[in-house]
C-alpha cells in the first residue's frame, strides 16, 4: 500500500485514538497535538448570502464555504453549549442537508415525502408558521439508490426552492407556504429522481438529476425562479450540442478538447444510459459567471460494458450560468472503475500558491485526491491524496489524469481485493468547510476499502444498472473515518480526529474559531479550528448525516442547528440494521460497520444549541 507524507502527520494524532478500553459509547476525539499551522492571505471568493446571522442557501454562500462570521461561541466557552430546543420532522430516514434561516424563520425540508416546515423563531416553543406536503409519487422511494434523502432548499426573492424525490422542482411563497409553481424535471420510469439542493443564480434555479445507479443520462438545468419555466438544460453525456460544448469551451488539457467527446468516448450508444448525474453541491462565481458542479459515476459500474473515457462522467464541470455552456472540464476519474463520482462540493477560495494569490476551486474527490484547480481555466495546480488510497500512484499534472495502478483495476470474472478508498470515496456528500481565519479546510472523510467483482448487466429501465458486487471493509489504521483540517496550498493534513465510523455529516466553521460536525453514531461535536482539540460533544437522538448551520436568533444569541437522522448510503445500505419501523424488513448487522446499530437507530430530529 502506498504511503504518503500525509500519513506521517496522521500518525501523530492516531496514537491516542488507538488506546484500548475507552468509555463505551463515545467516539471521543483523540487529543490532538496543537499544531497551530495556519495559512495567511486567504479569502472566500463570494461573501455570505444575506446578513451574517442568516443562512439563506445550502452552504451559506455561493463559494460553498460553510463559514460564518458569527463569533459568540468560541473555544473558550464552547463547553457551555446546551440544547435550546428540538423539533421532530416526523420522517425517519436519512436527514442529509441543512435547514435555512431567513429573517426570524427557519425552513426545514424532510427526506421523502419532502415535507417543508417554516418554524417561527420569535415565539417560545417555536411554533410552525406553515407546513407544506407536496404531491410526491410513492414509487420514487424505490427508485432512489441510496435512501430517500433531500439535501435542502435555497431561498431567494421571497421564495423557497427545493426538489422532490419524484423529479419535480417546487417554489413556495416563503411567507405563506403556498406553492407558487411546480415543474416536472425528471422521469421516474427511467430511474430519475432528485435529491440535490438547488442554488438560485440571477433569477434562475439550478437543479440536477440523481440516478447514476439506474442508467440515467445525467443533466443540469436552469428554471426561471419566477415562473418555473425551464431556461436551459445541459446533459453531461452525449454529443456536443446536448452537453453544451461550443465556442466557449476552452478547457485546459488538450486531450479533453475534440468533437462530441461526450459520445465518442463511449462504445456505440452506451452513453445513452451512461449515468453522469448531478446529485451533489453547486457553486457559483459571479465574476466569472460560472457555475461549478460535479458529475456522478458512469453506468454501469461494470467497466467492460463501456470501454473509453466515458466523458463527462466523474468530472468537475464549469458552465456559463446564463446558458449552461461548458467552459472547462476536469475528469477526475476517466473511465471510472470504482464508482468514484465527482459530485462533491467545489469550494471557491483565493489562496496563496507559490507566492501568488490564485483564484481556485478546492475539491475533495471520492477518488481520494484533493484537487486545487484554477477556477477560471480548469488547470490543476495540485492534487494530493487526503485519505489512505492505493488505486493510483498520483495525478499527472501535465495531463490532469490519474496514474492508475493495474493491480487495482477490475475486469469481468476477476475479484480485485482491497481497493482503497471504497466506492463510498475518501469523502462523499458530506461537505467540507473553509475558514479564511486559519486558511484551512475542515474535511469529514471516510476510511473504507473494498473488493470488486464485475458482472454483465442488462439495462432494464427503472431498475438498477450496476453490474458489480463491491463488499466494503474498514481501511488501514483501525478507524473508519476522520475529521481533518487540510492545507490546500500544499496538499497536507494539519490535524485530524479519528472516528470509529465514516464521518458522513458535513462541517461548519465560524469566525469564533470553532468547527462543528456530527457522527454516524450520533455525537454532535465542537472542536478548536486551530488545533483540533475537542471542546464539547452531545449525543443527539440519531446518527448525523446532515450539515450544521449557525444563525442569530431574535434574542441576539448565536445558535447552531443540526439534523439527527441516520440514513443515506451509510444508514440504509451499509449499516444494515438501524431501522426499527419496518416490521417486514429486519436486516443483519452490517459487516462494514459492525455494531453501529448498538449506538443509533433511524430518526428525524432537528437539534438547536446555544450557550
Amino acid at each position, binding site marked *: 500500500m502506498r504511503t504518503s507524507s500525509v500519513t506521517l502527520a496522521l500518525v501523530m494524532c492516531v496514537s491516542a485514538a488507538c488506546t484500548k478500553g475507552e468509555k463505551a459509547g463515545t467516539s471521543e476525539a483523540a487529543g490532538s497535538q496543537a499544531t497551530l499551522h495556519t495559512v495567511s492571505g486567504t479569502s472566500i471568493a463570494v461573501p455570505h448570502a444575506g446578513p451574517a446571522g442568516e443562512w439563506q442557501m445550502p452552504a451559506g454562500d455561493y463559494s460553498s464555504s460553510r463559514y460564518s462570521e458569527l463569533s459568540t461561541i468560541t473555544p473558550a466557552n464552547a463547553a457551555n453549549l446546551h440544547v435550546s430546543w428540538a423539533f421532530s420532522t416526523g420522517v425517519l430516514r436519512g436527514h442529509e442537508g441543512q435547514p435555512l434561516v431567513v429573517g426570524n424563520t427557519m425552513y426545514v425540508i424532510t427526506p421523502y415525502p419532502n415535507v417543508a416546515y417554516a418554524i417561527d423563531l420569535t415565539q417560545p416553543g417555536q411554533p410552525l408558521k406553515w407546513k407544506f406536503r407536496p404531491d410526491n409519487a410513492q414509487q420514487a422511494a424505490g427508485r432512489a439508490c441510496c435512501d430517500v434523502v433531500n439535501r435542502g432548499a435555497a431561498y431567494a426573492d421571497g421564495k423557497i426552492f427545493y426538489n422532490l424525490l419524484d423529479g419535480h422542482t417546487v417554489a413556495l411563497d416563503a411567507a405563506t407556504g403556498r406553492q407558487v409553481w411546480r415543474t416536472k424535471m425528471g422521469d421516474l420510469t427511467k430511474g430519475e429522481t432528485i435529491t440535490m439542493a438547488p442554488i438560485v443564480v440571477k433569477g434562475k434555479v439550478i437543479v440536477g438529476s440523481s440516478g447514476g445507479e439506474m442508467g440515467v443520462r445525467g443533466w443540469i438545468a436552469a428554471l426561471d425562479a419566477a415562473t418555473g419555466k425551464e431556461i436551459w438544460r445541459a446533459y453531461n453525456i452525449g454529443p456536443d450540442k446536448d452537453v453544451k460544448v461550443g465556442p466557449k469551451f476552452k478547457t485546459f488539457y488538450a486531450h479533453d478538447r475534440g468533437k462530441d467527446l461526450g459520445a465518442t468516448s463511449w462504445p456505440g450508444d452506451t452513453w445513452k444510459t451512461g449515468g453522469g448525474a448531478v446529485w451533489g453541491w453547486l457553486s457559483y462565481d459571479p465574476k466569472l459567471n460560472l457555475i461549478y458542479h460535479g458529475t456522478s459515476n458512469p453506468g454501469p459500474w461494470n467497466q467492460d460494458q463501456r470501454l473509453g473515457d466515458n466523458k463527462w462522467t466523474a468530472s468537475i464541470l464549469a458552465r456559463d450560468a446564463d446558458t449552461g455552456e461548458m467552459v472547462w472540464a476536469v475528469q477526475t476519474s476517466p473511465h471510472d472503475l470504482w464508482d468514484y463520482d465527482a459530485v462533491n462540493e467545489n469550494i471557491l477560495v483565493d489562496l496563496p500558491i507559490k507566492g501568488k494569490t490564485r483564484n481556485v476551486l478546492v475539491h475533495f474527490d471520492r477518488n481520494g485526491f484533493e484537487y486545487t484547480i484554477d477556477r477560471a481555466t480548469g488547470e490543476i495546480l495540485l492534487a494530493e491524496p487526503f485519505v489512505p488510497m492505493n488505486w493510483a500512484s498520483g495525478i499527472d499534472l501535465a495531463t490532469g489524469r490519474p496514474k492508475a495502478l493495474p493491480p487495482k483495476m477490475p475486469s469481468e470474472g476477476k475479484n480485485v481485493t482491497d481497493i482503497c478508498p471504497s466506492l463510498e470515496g475518501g469523502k462523499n456528500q458530506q461537505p467540507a468547510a473553509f475558514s479564511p481565519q486559519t486558511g484551512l479546510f475542515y474535511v469529514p472523510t471516510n476510511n473504507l476499502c473494498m473488493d470488486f467483482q464485475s458482472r454483465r448487466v*442488462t439495462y432494464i429501465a427503472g431498475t438498477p444498472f450496476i453490474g458489480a458486487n463491491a463488499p466494503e471493509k474498514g481501511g488501514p489504521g483501525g478507524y473508519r473515518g476522520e475529521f481533518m483540517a487540510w492545507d490546500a496550498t500544499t496538499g497536507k493534513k494539519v490535524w485530524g480526529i479519528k472516528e470509529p465510523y465514516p464521518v458522513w455529516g458535513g462541517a461548519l466553521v465560524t469566525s469564533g474559531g470553532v468547527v462543528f460536525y456530527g457522527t454516524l453514531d450520533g455525537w454532535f461535536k465542537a472542536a478548536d479550528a486551530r488545533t483540533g482539540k475537542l471542546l464539547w460533544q452531545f449525543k443527539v437522538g440519531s446518527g448525523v448525516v446532515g450539515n450544521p448551520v449557525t444563525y442569530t436568533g431574535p434574542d441576539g444569541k448565536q445558535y447552531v442547528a443540526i439534523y439527527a437522522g441516520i440514513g443515506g448510503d451509510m444508514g440504509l445500505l451499509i449499516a444494515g440494521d438501524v431501522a426499527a419501523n419496518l416490521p417486514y424488513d429486519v*436486516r*443483519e448487522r452490517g459487516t462494514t460497520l459492525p*455494531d453501529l446499530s448498538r449506538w443509533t437507530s433511524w430518526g428525524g430530529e432537528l437539534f438547536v444549541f446555544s450557550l
Partner: protein
Amino acid sequence: MKSQRVAAGLLGVSIIVAASACRDSNAAPPDPARQAIVPAPQATRSGLADGGDSLRFVLHEENPPVGFPLAGKFLNLRNPYEGDKKAIATGSQLFIAYNCIDCHGADGSGAMGPSFQDGRWHFGGSSGTVFESIYEGRPDGMPSWGGRISNDQIWMLTAYVRSLASKDLSTENFTGATVERTGH
C-alpha cells in the same frame, strides 16, 4: 412503447421486456392460475417450515398493512416450483439477470428494497402474494413484471426469494463478547 431485446446471459435465454417500467400493453398477460398445481409447504408449530429437500424457512406471521387493498386474485395460487431446488437455482440466476439483486441485495440481504432473509413480508409471504408482488409491482417502487417475463419465471423467482428466508433476526444482543468496535 419501445421494446428492447434483453439477453439473460446467465440462462442462455432471451426475453422481451418493455423499455419502461410499465407493463407492455401489447402483451396479453397469461393466466397465472393455470400454473397453480403444487401445494405450498405447511408451517410447523416451531415457526420453521420444511420446504422439501431439506430447505428450511423462517416464517413470521404474515402482516399486510391494515387497509391495504390486496387484489386477492393471486392469494390462493400454489407455486409449481415450491421447494424445487433446480427451479430455485434458476430463480437465483433470474434474480441477477433481471437486476433484482441490486435492489434487494446479494442473497436478498436488503438494499434499496427490503430484505428477504428475515422471513418477514411487507405484502404477505405466501407463494401467491409473493407472485402478486412480482407480477403487479408494489407502490414503493417495485416494478411490475407481469407480461414482461413469463409466469414460469415469476414462479421460479418466487420460489427463490422465499427460499432465502433462512435467518431469525428478531433479537440482536449487543452485550456478548462479539461486540466489535474499532477506533476508540
